[in-house]
């Protein structure tokens, strides 16, 4: 095991054409990044996806509410199954309304969330930056912060927050070998199985996060009771039913 790891490390360091050249690998040009002068070997026809949920939870402050700070809200990006996203995401940048002090907030480690107090609803821009071997480009998400609930029934409660979450999946169409190797066993990531012909280094899962005090996953997050459960089963059922109706008509 260890040997294979070393070999691959060597290959990376020398930046020479690799000995193994299965058809599924394609070679990319040297990247201009000065810190990684490695040849990125990419896996074609393999798609790594990371299911995420992002959104806001807002609590009314009740008696403690003031004109300018009537609600306390948290914006976050979490794994759909509450797993640690730190393996994929390097940092998250939340762009708030310009009326906030330092409206550009950077969160360098998971859980990627930000809490603030305010009175107004606005659009929050979330930029996700990935690790070097994952992707060089950032991904931008937008979420509208909701403080007031849809139904106007009755007064606000300090106990029941206004929760708005969106489910989505980050797709990496041509993941690098390193990335694949690193996350193939990680619960936060959906990784298809490769055929046996490919020899990938089995990287020992170095979960540095375990050693730290701070947890990256949100399984026991204080707000986790409000998290929505997104199940695809429901949607699939509806879609299947719909297709049942339409299909025969077009045959």
């Amino acid at each position, binding site marked *: 095991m260890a040997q294979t790891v070393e070999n691959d490390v060597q290959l990376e360091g020398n930046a020479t054409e690799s000995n193994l050249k299965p058809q599924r690998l394609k070679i*990319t040009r040297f990247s201009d990044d000065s810190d990684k002068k490695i040849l990125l070997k990419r896996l*074609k026809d393999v798609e790594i996806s990371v299911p995420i949920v992002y959104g806001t939870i807002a609590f009314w402050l009740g008696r403690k509410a003031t004109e300018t700070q009537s609600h306390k809200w948290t914006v976050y990006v979490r794994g759909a199954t509450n797993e640690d996203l730190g393996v994929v995401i390097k940092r998250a940048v939340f762009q708030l309304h310009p009326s906030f002090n330092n409206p550009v907030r950077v969160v360098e480690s998971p859980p990627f969330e930000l809490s603030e107090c305010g009175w107004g609803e606005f659009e929050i821009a979330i930029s996700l930056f990935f690790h070097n071997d994952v992707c060089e480009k950032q991904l931008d998400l937008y979420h509208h912060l909701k403080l007031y609930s849809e139904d106007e029934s009755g007064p606000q409660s300090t106990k029941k927050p206004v929760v708005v979450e969106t489910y989505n999946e980050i797709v990496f169409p*041509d993941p690098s070998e390193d990335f694949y190797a690193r996350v193939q066993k990680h619960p936060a990531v959906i990784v298809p199985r490769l055929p046996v012909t490919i020899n990938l280094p089995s990287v020992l899962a170095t979960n540095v996060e375990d050693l730290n005090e701070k947890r990256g996953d949100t399984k026991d997050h204080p707000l986790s009771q409000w998290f929505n459960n997104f199940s695809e089963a429901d*949607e699939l059922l509806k879609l299947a039913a719909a297709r049942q109706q*339409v*299909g025969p*008509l077009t045959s």
Partner: protein
Amino acid sequence: MDAKDILGLPKNALPIQEKKSKPPKESQRKPDGISREVYALTGGLAPLMPAVDVNQLKRKAQSDNEKITWQWLPFTNSARKDSLQLYHWVRVVNGIPPTGDYSFAKYNKSVDVLKYTDEEYEKYLTDPAWTKEETDQLFDLCERFDLRFIVVADRFPSSKTVEELKDRYYSVSRAILIARALSPGDVATHPLVKETYNASQETERKRALNLLLSHTKQQERKDVEVLAQAKKISEARKASKASEESELPVLSDIGSLGADKATADTVNPSTNSQIPSSSITAPVSETASVIASLRMLRVYLRSYALEQMVQAASSSAGLRTIKRVEQTLQDLGVNLKPKVPTKAVCAEHLELRKEILTLLNLQKQLQYKEAEGSSFREGSYTETPGTPPKQSLRAADLDRTFTPDSLSIGGERFGKREQKRKGPAPSSPAQSKRPRKYKASD
């Protein structure tokens, strides 16, 4: 009138001031200074602020205190070689006729065609293709016709092309200039020396122009198409380059996307032939190109990917059809954008949309066929050919739901048709309907 109202001036104030004795009917009086017609242009009233003082118009000549007469006098033209005297009208001021040359003489310009002596010819200007006689003739013609080479070529005794004549003339002049120059530097800036005449290039250029001129309309159209495609390709390339910042992966297998790459190699109008796998039909290549563009992004959200695929799939459909697809989805209880966009969900969603699109298209075709069928029925007794899609419409309820506005309008007649279709195998619907119709008319 209105302007006066605005200004608040009394209506008849000014005219009375300006025109001394004015009867109310102004148009009948001829005003002083300007002609009646011009005055009428102003609407029968003087302008509020006279732009030109009426009194001044006539007096200008008088104030000069000069006597101007016009006389019929002879004149000579320095541009003429003979001393022909012609006559014309001349403006004489105080009895003194004008001096100076005929005013048009200055336009008599001509080209300075260089003249060479025989010695010079022997020394510098001999050329295998040209005899001295020919060269002399050339120069003579050039001078007579002011370097109008087309005319010179026409008059030249032996047939030489315009380019050849030009070439000879320019090279001779050049040689003479250089030979006569005291030092090479003197003439270096002379245009004849600076620019050489390139006969072969000129011939080629004119040939190309001729070719362009004689292009048929078809060829022109093709050219425009090809250029547009080339532009699109280069723009797409630029866009993809920009979106990838520093890295540019070498995609080893873009076989299925032949359209993009192949046409870049040879700008060929018939792009269809360039796609390697001929089995690719339009919709498949659309999704393939969407997939490729997604791949270029390196990272994207699945919801975004679905949007792109949906757009590609409905690119052939009009706005109305797309709205109908969405309406159908809503009727079926499906979210227009999936709440849980996993890979499976997105795939199903896309397939569902495609199926609905197909369904709607078929229904539209059905409508058309029926319309044809009905017009046939009214015209002749011949049977209309059976329309194919009818067999599939077994589930009549859904049929009605999905065609809210199409077949149910028009009322009874259409309704009857619907019912008819439910029953027996509808192979020749026209036939089954006809007896009904006759019955009704009985």
